[in-house]
């Protein structure tokens, strides 16, 4: 069994490296049938694949389409593996939840979507609110879904100011201490994050994942 499981996880890992969504889905279905621990399959199989691709991407040996295909494969696998998790009330361990969106007045979404994709491929549950998201709406959704992270993307200096309004809104709704606010996008920076009282900043999608993982005390297993 041990050996079989190891081989199985390896297959999951490879399916992600190959960006093979169908294979990932097939493997996930098989895992559910065989009664493998879904968390184990996610974390030691699929997610390790995407971490490897992320590493390669940072080194410049993996291209973006390959990275995104890998991420899509992971997402597809996770959505199948999640079913038994959601069903079993006992031992329910939710995936860390993230709400993400582009700030009010701003319609740039390429970077935001990449961040959302990479987060969900790395075992986060991502709720993507899209672009031009009203400050109130961020707060409303945060109240409703109680995420661990609220991710704000802004590409325009004129509208990045609205991030302050989101943070004010969170304070008013007594939500500020319950989640971490992460900001990003071309004009954002660590000092901007500090200035507006956000918790975290990341310069790209891969480091957004790392920063979020570090926050929740999750360390990559494969070195």
């Amino acid at each position, binding site marked *: 069994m041990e050996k079989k499981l190891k081989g199985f996880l390896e297959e999951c890992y490879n399916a992600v490296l190959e960006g093979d969504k169908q294979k990932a889905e097939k493997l996930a279905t098989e895992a559910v049938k065989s009664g493998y621990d879904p968390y184990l399959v996610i974390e030691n199989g699929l997610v390790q694949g995407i971490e490897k691709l992320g590493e390669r991407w940072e080194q410049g040996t993996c291209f*973006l389409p390959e990275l995104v295909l890998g991420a899509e494969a992971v997402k597809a696998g996770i959505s199948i593996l999640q079913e038994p998790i959601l069903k079993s009330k006992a031992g329910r361990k939710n995936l860390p939840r993230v709400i993400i969106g582009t700030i009010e*007045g701003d*319609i740039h979404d390429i*970077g935001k979507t*990449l961040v959302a994709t990479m987060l969900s491929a790395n075992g986060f549950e991502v709720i993507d609110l899209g672009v031009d998201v009203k400050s109130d709406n961020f707060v409303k959704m945060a109240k409703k879904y109680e995420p661990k992270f609220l991710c704000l993307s802004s590409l325009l200096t004129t509208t990045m100011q609205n991030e302050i309004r989101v943070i004010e809104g969170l304070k008013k709704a007594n939500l500020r201490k319950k989640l971490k606010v992460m900001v990003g996008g071309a004009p954002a920076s660590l000092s901007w994050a500090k200035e507006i009282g956000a918790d975290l900043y990341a310069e790209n999608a891969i480091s957004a994942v790392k920063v979020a993982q570090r926050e929740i005390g999750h360390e990559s297993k494969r070195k």
Partner: protein
Amino acid sequence: MNRRPKLELLDKRRIEQIIDDALELLSKVGVFVENKEGLKLLDEAGAKIDKKKKRVHIKSELVQRCLKSAPKEIKVYDRVGRLALDLKGYNIHFDPGSAALWIYDLKKDKIREPVTSDLIRFAQLTDGLKYLKAQSTALIPSDVPKEIADRYRLFISLLYSSKPVVTGTFVKEGFEVMRDMLVSIRGSEDDLRREPLAIFDCCPSPPLKWSDLTCQNLIDCAKSGIPAELVSMPLTGATAPVTLTGALIQHTAENLSGIVIHQLAQKGSPIIYGGSPACFDMRTGTTPMGAIETMMIDSSYNQIGKYFGLPTHAYMGLSDSKTLDYQSGLESGIGAILAGLSGINVISGPGMLDFESCQSMEKLVIDNEICGMAYRLIEGIAFRKEPPFLELFKEEYLEKGFLTSPHTLKWFKEEVFFPSQVIDRFNLGEWLKKGKKTAVWRANELIEKIISSKSFDELSTEKKNELFKIIQSDAKKYGFDQELKKRFKSL
């Protein structure tokens, strides 16, 4: 007449094929329009609108009609009223790349946020650089409320340089304030219409979409007669097909849809066929302006714009480097030269680094030389009939050399472009003696000289006050009017 050297990547057949494909795309797939007024205009013109999807199918006849009414030449005048840009044919004009988030501070070797004093110096420097025919609102100030940054830039530009301005607004509310400033300089809306002082960028959202804001900008420009510049930016493989031809088809369709909306809002209003496409980098997820394929798309869509007889624009002569190095020079040089050879009427880019994100004054000074060389290149090679050529090779010259021959004296200044001290042409010994300076530091030394020596056309006190009133009443909404008053006490 000299032969004007030209770069043409597409032949006529290919141009026509791309246009046909774009027209089919517009009629079959259509464009998304998120703006109410835009949708209404299109509806009234008989375009088929899928109301639920907000998608508009535009027929070829409507496109042709709007192309016909768009002016084939646009003249832009400086603040004093002199003709500065004559946008037609193969005329070229350079202006600094606009809307940088950062400025590169050479002395500190640091990329930092720009402040008002940077904006002032940048405008003054641009004013003094001969080969930049227009200025642009090149820097985003960090020392004013972010909400008014777009129009504050225009205020500073108009105060400190008389060159016309390539600009644009980031939010709907920005337009009126900016238009009022321009009107206050000219005297009336009609005068501004007659003698445009600024060009406004309007960006469709790739693929094939007009967002509420940018569509409104386009309509506002049309109505006020301020030249609109279409900045369509297919990003290959990200927001557009990955092939250069695929990106060109999308670019053509986006531009044509813009022209239709614009001309429906106001027939005959000036519009520029332009863009800022990029060959999306599949390794880093960035939008390189220095990629050769980016420039190939630019040069080609410019040919398509010319086929329609419209003035054209592109972002070229800029670099993705984060510092002033070999990369920044080579990408800017290649871009400016290709743009010159392509005959692009408005070439925005000088000074810019880091994917349109960072400006550098030193680079602006260096790029000014590149622009000068581009102007020289497109003049081509002159055939001078006088004197008969054999006389050029008289015995006397063959013996003594040509240095002081009447022929040399007559022509050497005309035949050759003389760059400033930025370009080093001393011999080694001289260069060593002068302190082994690089082009970047030579440029740095020139900045002060240009800013302090330039006797630019001051705006009258009366006009200054008018301008100030406009920005002040806008600033008041953000509680910034008192600070502004302190800052511009001397006006």
